[in-house]
């Protein structure tokens, strides 16, 4: 039987992620922000050192629709819709292999506290307990990107919908770890009429 204390493992994960981020070379991140004129939703994009990341605000109703389609129980649908969910697109834009692990990513909330990003494995553990076998849509945890590879999936952040936060991500290429951050991110509003 494999038992872990989620509070303890979360603390260790954030401690390890913090230490590894400190050890990795830091680079200034060039971020572009795009506002979708049709929906008013924001997209943040950054590309550096052969790694491209794009985060797209998703509204909770969109998230609900996705998981309803896959017959999730209402409780689990509301649970994930309560998170700040982004569509994320990650790409290897370099000419060599790169890797990333979501377990090494963190976010810094408005109170300047750093937390680990919830990984796909953690979601799947919860879903299995709820009898859900569906295992797609979320950004995979641990990926090796060969040249030209890319991936699309949801990234989930647990912050109040009206608060800003920074995403601190990490990738490795040629045995060198790099970090980047997308700052001042915000969740999609709960409803369209809350868009400014």
């Amino acid at each position, binding site marked *: 039987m494999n038992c872990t204390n989620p509070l303890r493992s979360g603390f260790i994960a954030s401690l390890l992620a913090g230490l590894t981020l400190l050890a990795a070379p830091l680079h200034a991140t060039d971020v572009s922000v*795009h506002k*979708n004129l*049709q*929906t008013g*939703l924001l*997209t943040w*994009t950054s590309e550096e050192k052969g790694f491209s990341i*794009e985060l*797209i*605000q*998703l509204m909770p109703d*969109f998230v609900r*629709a*996705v998981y309803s*389609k*896959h017959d999730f129980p209402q409780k689990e649908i509301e649970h994930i819709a309560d998170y700040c969910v982004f*569509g994320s*697109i990650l*790409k290897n834009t370099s000419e060599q292999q790169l890797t990333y692990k979501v377990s090494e990513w963190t976010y810094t909330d408005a109170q300047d506290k750093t937390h680990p990003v919830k990984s796909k494995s953690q979601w799947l553990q919860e879903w299995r307990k709820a009898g859900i*076998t*569906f*295992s*797609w*849509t979320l*950004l*995979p945890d*641990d*990926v090796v*990107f*060969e*040249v*030209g*590879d*890319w*991936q*699309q*999936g949801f990234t989930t952040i647990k912050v109040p919908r009206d608060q800003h936060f920074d995403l601190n991500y990490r990738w490795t290429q040629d045995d060198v770890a790099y970090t980047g951050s997308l700052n001042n991110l915000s969740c999609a509003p709960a409803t369209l009429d809350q868009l400014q």
Partner: protein
Amino acid sequence: MSKIITLIITTLCLQLTAITLHAEWQEPELGYQLNPLVKPVEAPGFTLMDMDEYEYDFSEYSGKVVLLNFWATWCPPCRREMPSMERLHQQNAGKDFTVLAINQMEDADTVFSFFGVLETRPTFNILLDSDSKVSQRYNVRGLPTTYLIDKQGRVRYSAVGGREFDHPEVQKIIDALMQE
């Protein structure tokens, strides 16, 4: 009658989802890079049903180069690359090559409805991996993921994320594998 209504509603929902996704997701350009495996590995065998409940065994494709694609109808890049897979399949008709698309965890009605919104319905085999067991055996982490398997049944190339499979560079690789 109720089945037809369900199909129509599902089709409309899929179209609505596609519009929403189009509005909210920026769609990256599809490349054509296939990556060679340093050490080719034997492709895991499997038996799966198609939409007409006809059973296919992977061993039936022995002696052919196979483009094995893992996909789902809700996955935007999977939807985008499918027409190029069909063109690739057609331009290699009659050769020792086939495309095989393995759908993940969806039923035949959902897949059938999706084909209703495509300009050209795929003529290659679509198999249903209803519990994702086959994708797990192939260590698929995200959709779409595609493997190119040689005539000896070894995985030789991989591609994670959408591609334009009818690109001349992909065809060159397939031609080389067919000539081995």
